[in-house]
């Protein structure tokens, strides 16, 4: 059981990592791209846009959390 759990943890860390929202956002972006392309709408721009938005939101949230924690320590 311990091996199954550590195997699962390895893959979770490998694919999802520290921010599950990024992985979930990517899944949505891939699904939308696939849907648009199958409706004959050109969607090459969607993944690059999703990456920029997801990455910005993720690092910004982490930085905000980091600054808040530092402010609390100083107060």
């Amino acid at each position, binding site marked *: 059981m311990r091996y199954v759990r550590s195997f699962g943890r390895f893959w979770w860390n490998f694919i999802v990592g520290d921010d599950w929202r990024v992985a979930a956002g*990517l899944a949505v972006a891939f699904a939308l791209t696939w849907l648009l392309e199958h409706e004959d709408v050109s969607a*090459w721009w969607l993944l690059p846009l999703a990456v920029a938005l997801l990455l910005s939101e993720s690092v910004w949230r982490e930085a905000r959390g980091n600054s808040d924690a530092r402010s609390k320590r100083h107060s």
Partner: protein
Amino acid sequence: MNSSVILFVAAFLASAVEAVEALTIVLAVGVVRGWRSTLIGVAAASLVLAAVIAGLGPALQHIPIGTLRFVVGALLLAFGLQWLRKAILRASGYKPLHDEAEAFSREREQASSAAPIASTGMDWYSFTVAFKGVLLEGLEVAFIVVTFGATQGRLGLAAAAAAAAVVAVVVAGLVVRGPLERVPENTLKFVVGILLTSFGIFWGGEGAGVGWPGGDLAILGVIAYVGLVSYILMRALRRRRLALQPAAAQA
């Protein structure tokens, strides 16, 4: 720069980062606890890795290329974004820099405080730590080789890049005889994060049915775009941190 060169460089750099991490663990344990059991652990992990690659490689040839690109692209994108996210946070000062010298001291401290070597001559602590370190980092190298190689139909080239990276890192490790702090790991991770993310967008998009403007050459545009976005984010975060620093200190 043609796609073979980009593929080689991407697989080489990504594998080098993993090899540096594995070598740091092996060196730390070997120096403190002795080399025999450590090297047996390295050899055992290498055998398991070889079996995994031998099993995975041929199986991938039977999967339709569109499906393979989609799965591999999605995995690569998720994996690459994690690297990029951490690299941006490190470069902007929101996360401590991952220092191999510090990792080496930490591993060494843990190794010296572990249970003494058994009278049978086999040191299971050294074996397990070396085995786990090499297997986990090696699996990441295998993943990079298989994904990069299979989607482009150039498994041999990706494997050669990974092998060259491992040899280069091991030689560098033997020459410096210590942790590989001379390798600028964070810069390397930033570049690798950009490359993995770009290949993930490109292949994942193709797998989902996207026709890239400009065909294969679009990968260069994607790399430039991801690099630019990352650079802008890093600069903006760094400016934000510097602007908030005096306020936090006065509070």
